[in-house]
C-alpha cells in the first residue's frame, strides 16, 4: 500500500511551545483524525505539511518532498482552513473564475453541482454567508479539482450538529468516489472523528501520544470502575492510566476483554475518544 503523507521527525519551536519530533504515515485511502487540546500542535502539524512554516524534519506527500515539490503537491491537495479563505468579498460564482486559474484540473461543472447540492447562492458575497454556508463553500472549493487528498483544519468546529453531519457526509462521499483518496482532518470535536476516521492521532503538548485505528480505540479500549481494593489487584501492565474519585477508581485499559476475563470485572464501559484523551492527559499512573 502506498502512503499519501509521510511525516518524519518534524519539529518546530515557538516561544513556549515545541512540536517535538512528530512522525506518522497516512496510507492511501485512509481517513485520519488529528486530535488534541487547543495548542497541542494539530494546526502546526498541518501547517508543516502545507509548507506554511519552516520546520526541521522531512515530509513527503504523494511520495514527493514537500519543500522541493510544493506546487506539484498542492495541485493534488484539497485544503480547508477554518480561519482563512480566498476572499470574503467575492461571490461563489466569482470564486469559480479565480479558482480555475489555480488548478489545472479545476472542474467547473462539479463546482456548480456542489453549489447546487449544498444550496449555496451563486451571486451573494461570501461575507453574507452563515458560518455553515461558508464552510460548505470552502469544501466545494477544495473538492472541485478532484484532489487526491484532503487536508482539513477544524472543518466542523463552530457549526451546529446538523451542518456538521452534512459536512461529514460530504467527506464520506468524497472518499467513496475513489478508494485511494485520503483525508487528514484536525478537530477537537472528537465525536465527529468517531463517525468518520479510520485512524486517530492524538497529539499532546507537541508530541504524538498515540496513532491507533479508530476501531481499536472504540472496540478494545474500556473504562473499568472499581474500588481501591480491586484497583490494587490490577497489574500496571494491564492498564494505561487511572483517575481517582472520592470512593472509587476509573481505569483506562486497552484490552477490555482480557481485563474482564483476568480480573472478573462484570462491567467495563466503552469509552469515547474524548474519554480516552482525558485519561491520557489527566490520568495518573502512566
Amino acid at each position, binding site marked *: 500500500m502506498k502512503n499519501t503523507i509521510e511525516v518524519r521527525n518534524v519539529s518546530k519551536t515557538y516561544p513556549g511551545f515545541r512540536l517535538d519530533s512528530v512522525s506518522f504515515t497516512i496510507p492511501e485511502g485512509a481517513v485520519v483524525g488529528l486530535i488534541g487540546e487547543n495548542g497541542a500542535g494539530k494546526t502546526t502539524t498541518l501547517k508543516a505539511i502545507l509548507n506554511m*512554516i519552516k520546520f526541521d524534519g522531512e515530509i513527503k506527500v504523494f511520495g514527493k518532498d514537500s519543500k522541493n515539490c510544493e*506546487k506539484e503537491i498542492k495541485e493534488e491537495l484539497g*485544503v480547508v*482552513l477554518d480561519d482563512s479563505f480566498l476572499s470574503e*468579498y467575492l461571490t461563489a460564482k466569482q470564486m469559480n*473564475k479565480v479558482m480555475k*486559474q489555480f*488548478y489545472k484540473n479545476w472542474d467547473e461543472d462539479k463546482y456548480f453541482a456542489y453549489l447546487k447540492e449544498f444550496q449555496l447562492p451563486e451571486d451573494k458575497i461570501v461575507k453574507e454567508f452563515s458560518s455553515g454556508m461558508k464552510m460548505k463553500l470552502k469544501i466545494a472549493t477544495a473538492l472541485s479539482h478532484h484532489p487526491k487528498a484532503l487536508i482539513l483544519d477544524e472543518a466542523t468546529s463552530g457549526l451546529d450538529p446538523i451542518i456538521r453531519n452534512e459536512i461529514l457526509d460530504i467527506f464520506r462521499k468524497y472518499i467513496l468516489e475513489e478508494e485511494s483518496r485520503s483525508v487528514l482532518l484536525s478537530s477537537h470535536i472528537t465525536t465527529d472523528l468517531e463517525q468518520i476516521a479510520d485512524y486517530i492521532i492524538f497529539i499532546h503538548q507537541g508530541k504524538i501520544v498515540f496513532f491507533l485505528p479508530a476501531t481499536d480505540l472504540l472496540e478494545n479500549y474500556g473504562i473499568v470502575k472499581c474500588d481501591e481494593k480491586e484497583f490494587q489487584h490490577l497489574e500496571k501492565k494491564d492498564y494505561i492510566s487511572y483517575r481517582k474519585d472520592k470512593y472509587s477508581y476509573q481505569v483506562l485499559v486497552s484490552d477490555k476483554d482480557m481485563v474482564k476475563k483476568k480480573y472478573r470485572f462484570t462491567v467495563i464501559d466503552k469509552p469515547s475518544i474524548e474519554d480516552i484523551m482525558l485519561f491520557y492527559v489527566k490520568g495518573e499512573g502512566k
Partner: protein
Amino acid sequence: MKGLIIKDLLNLSSYKTTLFLILIFCSMGMIGTDAVNFAPTFIIVMIGMIVLSTFNYDEASHAEKYIVALPLTRKEIVMSKYVLAIVGNILGGIIGIILTIIIVNVMNVIRPDDLIRLDYQGLLVTVISGIFGVALIQAIQIPSVYRFGAEKGRIQMFLLIFLLVLMIAGAGFLITKIGFDINMEEINHFMNRFGIPVLILVSAVLYYISYKISYKIFKKKEY
C-alpha cells in the same frame, strides 16, 4: 498568478462607482479651473491608492494563509501585487491623458473664443512625474505591508506622504536659506529633455528593489 490578479480586480470591483466619480470630479475640476495637469495626477494617485487597498481586502478575509496553501510559489504571490500596482499606475496615467485630451478638445469646441492650448510634452511630463510619485509610495508601502500588515501600513502611508512633503519643503527652505540660486528654467529644460526617461528608469528601479525586499520578507513569513 493570473488567478490572484483576477481575485484582486474582483475585490476592487466595488470601486467602480468611486472611479467613475473621480473621473467626473476631475473633468469638472478641469472645466472650472482650466488646470490641465490636475486630472492625470489625481487619477494616478487615486488608482495607486486603490491598488494598495487589495492588501486590506486580503487582511480582512485572512486570505494570505489560504493563498499560501494554493499551488502557487511565494514569488508568484508577491509578483502579482507588483504587476497590479505597475499596470494600475500606467493605466492611471493613460486614463489621465485621454481624459485631459477629451475635455480640452470638448471645451475648445464649446468655447472657441477661449482656446486652451494643450502642451502635450508638459502633460506627458506631469503624467510620468505622477507615475513616479506613486511608484515611490508603492515601492516603500508594499514591503512594509508585507512586514507589518495592511492596517498598520495604512497609518504608515500617511506618515510617509507627510514625511515626503516635509522633506521636500525642508529641502526647499534650506536651499532658500543658504541662498543657493536655483535656476528653475534650467531644471524645467532638463525635465523637458531628459525627465521622462529618467523618471521611468528610476520608477522601474524602485519597483525592482521593492519587489526584491517584499519577496525576501514574504519568503520567510510563517502562517
